[in-house]
C-alpha cells in the first residue's frame, strides 16, 4: 500500500489512451493475456534464453500499445525480489544459476504481460470483461465497490495518522509503548467503525438512486471480427513463441 494510489492513477491514465490494443474488447484481451501467461508458465525454467521469444512478442505488444516502455519495465520490476530470492536459494542448493535466471525472467515477463493488459484496458471495461468471462457477478461488484472506496478509506486513514502525529509531534515515548499500542489499535478500531458506517451510508444513497442489487454498466459491445482476428493472431503468435522456446532449449 505504500504510495499505491499514485501507481493506480498512472495506470488509469495509460488505459484511457488510444491504440490498436486499447480498442480491442476487454474479454478478448483478458483471454489472450491468460493464453500468454499459460505459454510462459509452461516453458520449463531451464535457461533465461528460453523466454526470449515470449519477451520479443511482449515487446511488440508494448510497441503497439504506445505506452511508455521504460515506465512499464520499471513498474514490472517490483516483482523481481520474490523470484530473485527463491532463485538464489535454489541456486545455492542445486548450483544451477540458469534455473535462477530463468525463474526471474519467467516471473518478470508474466508481470509485464499483466501490466500491459491493465495498461490498455480501463478498469470499468476490465471488470465488465471479467464478468464476461465468467467471474461471479457478486465478486465483480465487490471489486467495483472496493476500487470506488479504496482512495476514500485510505485517505481517511492517512488523515487520522497525520492527526495522531500532530498530537504527539511524532515523538515516541519509549517508556509508554503500551499506550502507543493502545492508541494505534484504537485508531484502527475507529477507522473500522467509520468504514462500516460509510458502507451503510453508501448503501442508503445507492438505494435512494435506484440500486436494485446490481451495478449498472454500459453493455459491452459485441465482439467484432477485428477482435476475433486479433485473438487468432495473438494465439498463433503465442503458440509460435512457445514452440521457439522449445527449440531453443
Amino acid at each position: 500500500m505504500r504510495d499505491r494510489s499514485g501507481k493506480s492513477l498512472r495506470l488509469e491514465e495509460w488505459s484511457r489512451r488510444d491504440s490498436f490494443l486499447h480498442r480491442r474488447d476487454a474479454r478478448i484481451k483478458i483471454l489472450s493475456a491468460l493464453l500468454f501467461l499459460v505459454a510462459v508458465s509452461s516453458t520449463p525454467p531451464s535457461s533465461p534464453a528460453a523466454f526470449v521469444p515470449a519477451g520479443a512478442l511482449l515487446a511488440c505488444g508494448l510497441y503497439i500499445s504506445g505506452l511508455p516502455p521504460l515506465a512499464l519495465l520499471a513498474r514490472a520490476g517490483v516483482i523481481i525480489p520474490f523470484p530473485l530470492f527463491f532463485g538464489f536459494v535454489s541456486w545455492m542448493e542445486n548450483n544451477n544459476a540458469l534455473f535462477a535466471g530463468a525463474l526471474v525472467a519467467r516471473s518478470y515477463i508474466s508481470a509485464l504481460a499483466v501490466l500491459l493488459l491493465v495498461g490498455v484496458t480501463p478498469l470499468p471495461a476490465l471488470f465488465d470483461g471479467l464478468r464476461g468471462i465468467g467471474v461471479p457477478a457478486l465478486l465483480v461488484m465487490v471489486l467495483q465497490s472496493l476500487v470506488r472506496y479504496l482512495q476514500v478509506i485510505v485517505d481517511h486513514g492517512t488523515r487520522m495518522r497525520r492527526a495522531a502525529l500532530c498530537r504527539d509531534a511524532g515523538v515516541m515515548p519509549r517508556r509508554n509503548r503500551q499506550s502507543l499500542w493502545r492508541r494505534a489499535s484504537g485508531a484502527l478500531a475507529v477507522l473500522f467503525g467509520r468504514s462500516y458506517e460509510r458502507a451503510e451510508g453508501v448503501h442508503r444513497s445507492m438505494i435512494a438512486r435506484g440500486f436494485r442489487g446490481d451495478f449498472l454498466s454500459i453493455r459491452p459491445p459485441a465482439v467484432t471480427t477485428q477482435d476475433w482476428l486479433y485473438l487468432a493472431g495473438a494465439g498463433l503468435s503465442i503458440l509460435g513463441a512457445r514452440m521457439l522456446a522449445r527449440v531453443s532449449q
Partner: protein
Amino acid sequence: MEVMHIPDGILSVPVWATLNAAAIPGIGLAVRRAQKSLSEGHVPLLGVMGAFVFAAQRMNFPVGFGTSGHLLGGALLAMTMGPGAATIILTAILILQSLLFQDGGLLALGANAMNMAFIGVWAGWLPYRMLSKGSLRTVGMFAGGLLSVLASAAAAIAELRLSGVAMSPAIVGGSAGVFLVTGIMEGLITVAVLQAVERLNPGWLRVPRGMPSRAAGALVTVALLLTIGGVLYISALPDGFESFAARVGVAAQERILWSAPFPDYEVPFLPGDWSRKALAGLAGMAIIYGICLTVGRLLMRQRSA
C-alpha cells in the same frame, strides 16, 4: 495479507493448475452462499471493508528496537465479517493486487486465494469460533491471528517446494522463524484491534452460532499447528521412510505387493508430466472430498436417528 503473494512464473503448471481447479469452485461456492445469506446492503460493505484492510495496512504498531509492524487482516476480517464474507473480500483484494499493484500473479491467483482467502481465513476463524465464549476468548483471537499467518505461509512454502524451488532445511527453518514472529505480531494486533472495536460497538464482532466445547477448540488448534509444522517439515526433508529404507539397504529388496492407482502421485496413462500430476492431484482431492462427505452424512444420520 502480505504473507506471501506468489507472482506468476514461480509455480509449476501442475501446482497452479491444481490450485486454480480447487480455488475456482471454492470461490464460486462462497459467492453462492453469500448471495443466499447476505442482503444487498452487504455488497458495499464487503467492498468498503476490503478498502479498510488496505488502509489498515498503512497504520504502524510499535514493536520495539526501533521497528514497527502492521495488521495483515485476514483473521480480523473472519472474526468481524464471518469466514464466507472474509473469503470473498480477500479474493477481491488479491485480484486487485495482482492487476493494479503486481502483488501476486493472475495464474497464481488460485494458489494465493487458497493460501490466504481459504486456509488463512479458516485457520483464523476456527480457534476464535471454538474459544469465543468465556475466559479463553482472547486466546482464541490471538490464536486466530497467529495461525492465519502460519497456515498461509506453510501452504505457500509447500507450493514453492512442490514447484521445484529447492530450499535447504536451514532456509525453511529461517522462513518459519520469520513467519512465527509475523504471526505473533498479527495475533497481538488482532486482539488489540478487536477489543477496541468491541468497545466501540460489540455488535461488530461476529458471534458464532452453536458453541463447541473447549476440548474441541484445543483439538482444532493443535491439529492446525501439527499440520503447519508437518507441512514445513516435509517441505524441508525427503520422505522419511524412503530415506531410512535407502540408508539401511532395505529399499533394494522391496517387493511390490499392490500397485497403487496413482504411483508417485501421477496418473500413469496420460501424456505429459504436468497433466499426469495435475489429474492425480484433482483425483486425490475428489476422493478425499467424497470420503469426508460420506462420513459427514453418516454422522448426521446417526445424530438425527
